[in-house]
């Protein structure tokens, strides 16, 4: 016999035992969640009225906020957790009052201490709390956390730096995107950088020369979003020669937003059939965004392009460029691309 009876019995007992344990685990997970929710609800219920008063901006004399500072023990922990959650949604005086409650509770100081905790969750939550409390003095600590071994902590640190909005942190945030093995997710970095004001334009220019494609893409995207015209030379370079297609498309879109008449030629150069179709389409849209009359002949030429979408985008761009653009459509009135663009424009106009 290949399998001994003892081995078979043993294996069966282990498997069935594990099944029973897992059933207990399912029940325990659910029961624990229920009891924790109930406990939190019970602890929070007496504090809820003053909390709502503060959050809704009706605590004119500060009495409700004062009442919240008296919470102790587990109630305080539960309350602080709820305050942190609320701070993601409210601004102004109510937010300042709630931050004051956190400060009185020692939550901000505890968060600073928690930044060196061994627990990933604690470090990440601490970073978020420091951001929500707009604790500007902790920027160096948060910048350091951008290199944390855990992506959750890096994410939270970038989020916090975005909330604090200190442009001095822009360089480290952008650099963190391409950090080997410990990269910062591009979406978080972009959102953080969005909140850092106009002082980040030079950082973005440097970012466009970074070796990492994600860093270049974020820098190019934000340069366009924030209309940082100083980044135009770098954007042109990226559109011309970047090895990554996504970066080139992003650069074309950015040039469309903030470019000048001299950028028409650069964009037109990348509308030729030898370029990837996605890039050609991005360049045509960018030409329309740019709205420079110099682009009209090139766009009119593209009305006969073999790609119907490109032709329609060119027609749409020409329609948005005033009488000269519309004149360029004459003679193409029967083209499906032109008819479609005209129809869509008229529908949009009628509904405006």
């Amino acid at each position, binding site marked *: 016999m*290949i*399998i001994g009876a003892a081995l*078979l*019995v043993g*294996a*069966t007992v282990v*498997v*069935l035992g*594990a*099944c029973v344990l*897992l*059933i207990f*685990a*399912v029940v325990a*997970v*659910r029961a624990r969640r229920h009891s924790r929710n109930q406990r939190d609800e019970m602890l929070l219920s007496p504090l809820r009225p003053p909390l709502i008063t503060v959050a809704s901006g009706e605590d004119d004399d500060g009495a409700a906020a004062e009442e919240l500072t008296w919470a102790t023990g587990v109630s305080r922990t539960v309350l602080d957790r709820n305050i942190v959650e609320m701070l*993601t949604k409210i601004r102004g005086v109510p937010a300042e009052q709630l931050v004051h409650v956190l400060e009185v509770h020692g939550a901000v100081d505890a968060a600073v201490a928690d930044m060196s905790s061994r627990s*990933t*969750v604690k470090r*990440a*939550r601490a970073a*978020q709390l420091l951001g929500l409390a707009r604790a500007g003095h902790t920027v160096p600590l948060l910048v350091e956390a951008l290199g944390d071994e*855990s*992506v*959750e*902590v890096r*994410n*939270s640190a970038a*989020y916090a730096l975005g909330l604090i909005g200190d442009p001095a942190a822009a360089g480290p945030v952008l650099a963190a995107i391409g950090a080997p093995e410990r990269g910062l*997710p*591009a*979406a*978080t970095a*972009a*959102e953080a950088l*969005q909140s850092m004001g106009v002082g980040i334009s030079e950082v973005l220019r440097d970012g466009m020369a970074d070796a990492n*494609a*994600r860093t270049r*893409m974020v820098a190019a*995207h934000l340069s366009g*979003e924030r209309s940082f015209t100083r980044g135009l030379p770098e954007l042109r370079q990226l559109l011309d020669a970047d090895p*990554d*297609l*996504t970066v080139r498309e992003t650069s074309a879109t950015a040039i469309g937003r903030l470019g000048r008449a001299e950028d028409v030629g650069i964009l037109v150069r990348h509308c030729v059939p030898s370029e*990837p*179709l*996605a890039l050609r389409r991005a360049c045509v849209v960018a030409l329309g965004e740019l709205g420079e009359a110099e682009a009209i002949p090139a766009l009119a030429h593209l009305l006969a392009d073999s*790609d*119907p*979408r490109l032709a*329609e985008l060119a027609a749409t761009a020409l329609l948005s460029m005033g009488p000269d653009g519309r004149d360029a459509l004459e003679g193409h009135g029967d083209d*499906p*691309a032109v008819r*479609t663009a005209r*129809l*869509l424009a008229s*529908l949009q*106009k*009628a*509904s405006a």
Partner: protein
Amino acid sequence: MSWDGIASGLRSFVLWIMDVTAVPIIIYFVLINTSLLVLIGLAYLEFRAQQRRRSTAVAWQGAGLAPGVSLLVPAYNEEAGIVMAVKSFLTLRYPRHEVVVVDDGSSDQTFARLEEAFDLVHVPRELPHEIPIRAKVLGIYVPRDGRTRLVVVRKENSGRSEAINVAINAASEPLVAMIDGDSILEPDGLLHVTRPFADDPTRMVATGGAIRPVNGSRVVSGRIVRVEMPQTWLPRIQLVEYLRAFLLGRTGWSRLGGLILISGAFGLFRRDVVVEVGGLDPTSIGEDFELVMRIHKRLRDEGRDYSIEFVPEPVSWTEVPVTAKVLRNQRRRWHRGLWETLWAYRSMLFRRKYGRIGWLALPYYWLFELFAPLLELFGIVIVPLALALGIVNVPFAILFLVLAYGYAVLVTLSAMVVDEWAFHKHDRWRAIWQTIAASVLENIGYRQATVWWRLEGWWSSLRGKKHVWGVMTRTGFDEEPA
């Protein structure tokens, strides 16, 4: 020859078979269970990371880097639910998305319902031919209000794959999501599945989301308002299968960097990459699997740096078969698609440039997905025969059966723990007991039936029999539990 002689001959034959196959089968049994354990371990690690991420998640509303998404909805005779589905897709929480419906030559009122609900007007647009299409496009329509981001394309009937290819040609956003017209998406589903693209915009080429059966749940206006268990055992058992497949299988493979299957009910792809590889193959039965394999092959052949990820958050809810007839057709199709795709990409096996796909994922699918029903059928035939002939010890055989099926239950329970811990979609305690019961009942009849159906699908492919698409009878789910 006397009966005794026949019995003796049969006994010798069965003994010989058992002698020859015992070692390979035991090795297979150990390997498949070990691989499942490894997948459970990987899924556990992934969920621990996901749970950490969720508990420390910062608000993301898709601002900034969120790429635009075109939701591609092929529709064939969907008059009952198409308007509600499109409305719910249009109102998903996402900063930039459009819906592209392709009416695949419906013989019912699908188009008329859409035309009436959205006041559609014909546009003289020509569709790009980035992906070649055989069927004739009859017309393209948009809502008269000029604001609603909906495009409806009417075409001659030529099947789901080509309908999706037409939709890809008509799509204008950089990401395309392939979804069924009868699927229900979570309001934040798009935010979840696009996040990997926003985080890693230059490398991410595809993401898949978890799919759950909607049967039994309360649905109002295309939104799930209460998640409930299905009312009959057939869909309940399928729920158990979905839990296992998505919470352990896909999650584990994604963690390992070897995800090769994204479900057709919901998958999100970079449009340019799908166009580059030629779109869905209309001749393939397992078109979704085949597409992902083609993407892997092309990008690895070109040495490109890319990523395909699975997002375990429930994204899409779909109605699963409630009758054995429909289920049989589905399983036959799935297994046939699996076989044809694995065979088509056999050249990727054990080749260094395909990395974990060639060395781990594909061998796993060959051994433990494709051949599993064959070996299980062998067991289903040989064990009762051996018992009848008195060759094997009865308590021993029963114990082995309990071990084998007990292990299957163990895997399901692992998925249940993960589900309860991470998502806890079902509020009622009754749901727990019903799921546990379904995981046990699955082994009595259901499993054996699906083994047979899968083999039927494989066999019909080997015989070169033309596949006939069955009709998925929908019970519908508006207002009342499905």
